[in-house]
């Protein structure tokens, strides 16, 4: 059974200039203990999805048109604020992209971790502080530094602190929104390795949001490719990376220069993502797809099973498998 089950999630942002269709029917499942990678470009709806799960959609502009997010048999979207606050941190925790701004500059890191512990666990201050020191050791920072302020840490260390806060209450599900994008490669490798270790240790499930296919390949069990607010392909990491079916996924791979294979010229996807206020009627990718036909422009394709647990949203795959209802 799925650990987290997202069904037909549709989210709009109502702005002064019009309605932005951020998510247009996302179906995703995260299994227990696995890491699901969510890959897409800016504006594809990755962060909106994360915010929906956390119940942090901006109230002023965000509108959930439809959908359910089942966690532990309950729909997160129907929960009251109070219930949601109990879930946040203790059951589902989130790591944000920018470690520079996600820490409070006027509190010591020890205090910030201890606070996260006390929010959910009924314990004394010194117990929480002890726990904070343990967490710091766990993410590779000496416990003596618990009394230091965020500005005394480097970028990579700050992200470790952010991770320590996220893991402080032993959450069952972790959302990491581009956790290493702001870091240098050598630091990125350290932080990702550490996250993998901790994930195994605590048996946490994870949703890893990134635009870096390399990070996905090295860290995820399954991957979902999202484009214009829709999952266009998802499946096991080997299935998708070795036997990608959707033209967008193929385009992504031919867009990145790779260390292993030498190409003199990249083959990028032409054009750009459609305006989320004015999406094409049929396949969202039809404006940039080489294989687009009249049908693609008029009819909206459904996810088609192209292999064991491997789905793609493209008419080209239709004859191969059954349509997901």
């Amino acid at each position: 059974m799925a650990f987290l089950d997202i069904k037909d999630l549709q989210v709009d942002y109502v702005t002064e200039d019009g309605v932005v269709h951020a998510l247009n029917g996302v179906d995703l499942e995260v299994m227990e203990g696995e890491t699901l990678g969510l890959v897409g470009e800016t504006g594809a709806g990755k962060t909106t999805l994360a915010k929906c799960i956390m119940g942090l959609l901006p109230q002023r502009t965000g509108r959930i048109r439809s959908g359910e997010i089942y966690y532990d048999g309950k729909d997160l979207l129907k929960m009251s604020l109070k219930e949601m606050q109990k879930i946040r941190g203790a059951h589902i925790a989130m790591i944000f992209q920018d470690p520079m701004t996600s820490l409070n500059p006027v509190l010591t890191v020890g205090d910030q971790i201890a606070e996260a512990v006390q929010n959910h666990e009924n314990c004394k201050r010194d117990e929480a502080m002890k726990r904070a020191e343990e967490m710091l050791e766990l993410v590779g920072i000496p416990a003596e530094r618990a009394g230091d302020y965020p500005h005394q840490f480097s970028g990579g260390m700050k992200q470790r602190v952010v991770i320590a806060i996220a893991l402080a209450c032993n959450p069952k599900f972790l959302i990491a929104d581009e956790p290493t994008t702001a870091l240098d490669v050598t630091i990125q490798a350290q932080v990702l390795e550490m996250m993998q270790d901790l994930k195994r240790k605590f048996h946490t499930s994870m949703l890893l949001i990134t635009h870096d296919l390399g990070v996905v390949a090295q860290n995820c069990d399954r991957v979902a490719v999202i484009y214009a607010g829709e999952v266009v392909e998802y499946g096991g990491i080997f299935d998708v990376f070795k036997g990608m079916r959707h033209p967008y996924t193929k385009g992504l791979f031919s867009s990145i220069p790779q260390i292993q294979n030498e190409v003199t010229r990249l083959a990028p996807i032409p054009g750009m993502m459609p305006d989320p206020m004015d999406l094409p009627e049929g396949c969202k990718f039809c404006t940039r797809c080489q294989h687009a036909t009249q049908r693609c422009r008029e009819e909206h394709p459904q996810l088609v099973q192209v292999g064991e647990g491997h789905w793609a949203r493209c008419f080209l795959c239709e004859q191969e498998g059954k349509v997901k209802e």
Partner: protein
Amino acid sequence: MMEGGAKKELLRVQHLKKYFQTPAGLLYAVDDVNFSINQGDTLGVVGESGCGKSTLGRTILRLHEPTSGEVLFDGVDIMRLNKAQMKEKRKQMQIIFQDPYESLNPRLTVSQAIQAPMIIQGLYKASDKEGLERRTLEMMDLVGLARRLVNTYPHELDGGRRQRIGIARALALNPRFIVCDEPVSALDVSIQAQILNLMQDLQQELGLTYMFITHDLSVVKHLSTQIMVMYLGQMVEMGTPRQIFENPCHPYTKALLSAIPIPDPAKKMERIQLHGELTSPINVGPGCRFAKRCVYARPECFASSSQLKEVEPGHVVACHLVEHTVDEAGASGLSE
């Protein structure tokens, strides 16, 4: 690559230093860097944030005044030029910036942004509307911007298009040398590939010479004819992409290469451990700057800084652990 005979050297940088005074002490942003670029080549400069690669690019263009050193462009030391001579030289040396959202004046339209350099440099008079417009449309065609966007403002355009404006602005003066400071880092992968291809095409069509600064090793490998690896203000290794990627000699280069996440789940990374994190080069003492993080560091690494050694023709490394493997006399006889 056409390798017809020896290429002409366009740019030579000698003992270039740029120090900044900070409250914490002297910051050695660029410390005694030497290299040269041939006409039509691309020098890729890689390193992590704070290694001085952007400062290097800006100092070469005299956007920062260097602390000392020479930059010979076509044999002329541009550091000795006066204001008027330097302004003239700027026609030949341009820069493309990282952030297409930051590098365009939000109050200027596309055509005004492209025309500004031409008017400033006196290629066209501001009153010569017709000439300016013709040239603007020419530039827009060249970088692949639709002509209908001529009167739009940067905030109405996406990152890829803005970066095209940035490129058109740099090209408007017909430069020969362009410093590209992370021009694709802020862009999405599919757009990034479009811009990289455009830059390659322009290089071939116009015979441009690039200095391509980036933290992305895959991009550097894809584009460069020479690669320079920087660490805390110094060059630690330089060579052709093949030399750097197949035979990295400096422990830092090795660690950097091993940290790249490979987009292939079948190939698991074997990362080379590094101690700690990059610090800033403030008040650096003697010794190799990488020694503190290096797993192979020996006592002599902390005692004295290492000189550049040539390990194979055209491949130089600054590391105590690397021995001379090619004797100087033999090296000059060999050619690539």
